[in-house]
C-alpha cells in the first residue's frame, strides 16, 4: 500500500441502517471534500471472506478513522446493545497503541449525539477526541472538516469552511436524484461504491 494512500484514507466506522444514511453520506462528502478518501466495510462485498478480516485490512490501510458511537443503544426487539462500532473503535485504538510506527500515526475522531453520553457506556475512551454531531448532517460535516483541517496531513492546505462545505453537500444531494436517473440507478439502492464514484466525479466538476 502506498504511503500516500494510507495518509489520505479515512476509515468510516458507523451504523449502516437506513435512518443513518443521511449522516453517512454527509461524513463521506466531508471526507472527500477535504481531499481525503473514505473507506468503509460496505465497499467490500465478498461473502466468502470473514468480515472482521476485511475490517482489519481496512483499518490497516487508513491513517484516519471516524467512529460514530451514537447508535450504541438497546435494540427494541432484543434489548441488547449494538456493539459493532465500539468493537471497531477498539481495533483502531489497538492498532494505534500496538501497531508499527506507521500505525501509531493514526488519528481518530469519535462522534456521538451528545458530547458526554459516552461516559455512560464506554467511559474508558475518555481523553480521545470525542465530539457531538447532534444528529445533524451540517454539524457532522463541521466536525470532520475541523478535525481533518487540524491533521498533520496536508497541513499547508487550509480546507474551506464548514458552512460552505455543508452548502456544497446540500447541492450535491439535490443533484443526486438527477445523476442517478441518468445512470439508471435508484437513489434508495445506491451502494457505497456507487455513491463514492458519483461523488468523486462530481467533485472534479465542482471544484472549490
Amino acid at each position, binding site marked *: 500500500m502506498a504511503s500516500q494512500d494510507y495518509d489520505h484514507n479515512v476509515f468510516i466506522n458507523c451504523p449502516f441502517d437506513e435512518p443513518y444514511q443521511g449522516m453517512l453520506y454527509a461524513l463521506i462528502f466531508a471526507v472527500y471534500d477535504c481531499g481525503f478518501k473514505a473507506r468503509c466495510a460496505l465497499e467490500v462485498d465478498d461473502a466468502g471472506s470473514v468480515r472482521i478480516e476485511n475490517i482489519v485490512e481496512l483499518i490497516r490501510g487508513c491513517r484516519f478513522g471516524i467512529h460514530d458511537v451514537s447508535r450504541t443503544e438497546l435494540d427494541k426487539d432484543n434489548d441488547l446493545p449494538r456493539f459493532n462500532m465500539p468493537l471497531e473503535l477498539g481495533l483502531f485504538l489497538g492498532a494505534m497503541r500496538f501497531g508499527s510506527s506507521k500505525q501509531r500515526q493514526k488519528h481518530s475522531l469519535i462522534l456521538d449525539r451528545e458530547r458526554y453520553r459516552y461516559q455512560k457506556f464506554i467511559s474508558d475512551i475518555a481523553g480521545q477526541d470525542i465530539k457531538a454531531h447532534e444528529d445533524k448532517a451540517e454539524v457532522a460535516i463541521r466536525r470532520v472538516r475541523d478535525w481533518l483541517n487540524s491533521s498533520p496531513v496536508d497541513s499547508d492546505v487550509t480546507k474551506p469552511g464548514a458552512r460552505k462545505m455543508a452548502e456544497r453537500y446540500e447541492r450535491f444531494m439535490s443533484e443526486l436524484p*438527477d445523476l442517478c436517473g*441518468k445512470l439508471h440507478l435508484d437513489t434508495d439502492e445506491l451502494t457505497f*461504491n456507487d455513491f463514492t*464514484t458519483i461523488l468523486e466525479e462530481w467533485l472534479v*466538476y*465542482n471544484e472549490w
Partner: protein
Amino acid sequence: MAKTKRTIKRSGKIGSVSRKDVRAAVREVGRARSASTGRFVKKPKR
C-alpha cells in the same frame, strides 16, 4: 457473443456504468443547474 458497448472500469463498481458515463452525467446535470440558476454557461462553439 457481441461485445457490450459499455465497459466496467472499476471492478465491482457501479454495475455496467463506466466512469466516463458518470462524468458525462455530472457535466450534464451541472450545466442544467447552471442554466436554471443563471450562472455562467459555456456557449456552444459556432
